[in-house]
């Protein structure tokens, strides 16, 4: 217990909360909240707010712009095409010009479900 106190002393605003929960132990959720804030001090003030919901609405976004891709191809006509991105195939945005090879294979399951086996 004493070691916990020493750790939280550096985050003075959390100290009261943690002490309170340690004293009473009646609100485990407050302890958890304090833990989270200690780890991620910049976590948004509105946890259920826009950022969180926006992320949910954008599930499945893959960043591929055929315009960018074709422009890049045109510029690189005389040079070698850039090698496919490394193992991190899910992130194809920013400076790297995505190529069809970078996007994960979208093949349908031709195999019968194992539940039917």
């Amino acid at each position, binding site marked *: 217990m004493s070691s916990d106190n020493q750790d939280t002393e550096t985050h003075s605003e959390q100290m009261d909360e943690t002490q309170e929960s340690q004293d009473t132990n009646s609100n485990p959720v407050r302890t958890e909240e304090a833990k989270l804030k200690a780890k991620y001090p910049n976590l948004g003030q509105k946890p259920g707010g826009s950022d969180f919901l926006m992320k*949910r609405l954008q*599930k499945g976004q*893959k960043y591929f712009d055929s315009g960018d891709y074709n422009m890049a191809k045109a510029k690189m006509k005389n040079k070698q095409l850039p090698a496919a991105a490394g193992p991190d195939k899910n992130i194809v945005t920013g400076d790297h010009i995505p190529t069809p090879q970078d996007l994960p294979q979208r093949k*349908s399951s031709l195999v019968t479900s194992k539940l039917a086996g």
Partner: protein
Amino acid sequence: MAGAGGGGNDVQWCFSQVKGAIDDDVAEADIISTVEFNHSGELLATGDKGGRVVIFQQETENKSQPQCRSEYNVYSTFQSHEPEFDYLKSLEIEEKINKIRWLPQKNAAQFLLSTNDKTIKLWKISERDKRPEGYNLKEEDGRYRDAATITTLRVPVFRPMDLMVEASPRRVFANAHTYHINSISVNSDNETYLSADDLRVNLWHLEITDRSFNIVDIKPANMEELTEVITAAEFHPHQCNTFVYSSSKGTIRLCDMRASALCDKHSKLFEEPEDPSNRSFFSEIISSISDVKFSHNGRYMMTRDYLSVKIWDLNMENRPVETYQVHEYLRSKLCSLYENDCIFDKFECCWNGNDSVVMTGSYNNFFRMLDRSQRRDVTLEASRESCKPRQVLKPRRVCAGGKRKKDEISVDSLDFNKKILHTAWHPQENIIAVATTNNLYIFQEKVN
């Protein structure tokens, strides 16, 4: 006893069957994403992440041998949805089957609706057990006969053949959802159904695929003002004008389609007031409703949020009539559950046939049976270790802290990758289907 539909602690649950691969190496496509019995309970459908549907059929019971339990065997399997890529929006469209809903049976064929994130399909499953034989112009294998060899005329007849079950897509309801479809629900009028995504609910006619009516739209004019999304929606089992939809803020709205064409204004708002002293960073996230289900009798509805199951009386909006804790011991683990994203897991729930017991899943392949009439609950486990035929399931106990008793498992030993999100209860009998990540377990009531 067959037909009672009761359950809970006077019922002993036994292992009946398990479907799926035994090995631990689970391919993503094999992850089960939905489980649903049809209206008679004779058919059990599953959908998976690979877009495939597998339908099991209950074998007709051998009346002379009551000990012989009816088993579910594979009836039909087909690829319902394929992966797609929306090039215009740079959006990958998963083939994962989010929901399956059966239509009540009207004729010899069976119909079900299956949906992925964007497209709903109506599938017809029909049996063929005879075929015509004795064509004049064709051989049995289909090749055309040489006309010169045909000297007599015969009448083709139907002859029995091995049963063949065919699944064919009869309707494709596409392009009506900008956001991801989370629910579909067939109306009691047996003509229409609704589909809900994060921000909108649409009404369809089963016969018409090129038109859909928007009945709920909660998209704000400015997306920055977005505060909640629709998480589930369902039609009332008997009142064809009534449906409910739940939100990520823990509220349920009941809407009456007779009131207006656009049901943005609710008829009833079900919300339990929150104790302000309990408010925390996690409050809103754990209050998000992951499933809403009407009771069979249409008087109640059940909601599932991260830690509890609540039963609401449709006549009382200000609080639920019953609240059951599913896994309260997780309250002291919310920080790590937020970090590993488990706090966003969407658990479903279901009623038994006579609305006396409800069931929902948890972690470590545990599932919970909550008996409303006897006010008792039990935790059971779907595991390969309890797979002997007719083996009775032992109740499991989780130790929240302090000294762990002999048969208990401590919270820290729970496997959070083993989640039971989807369960289903036979509409009449005490038979339940429980889906672990890639296996389907069928448990039945112990028959003496």
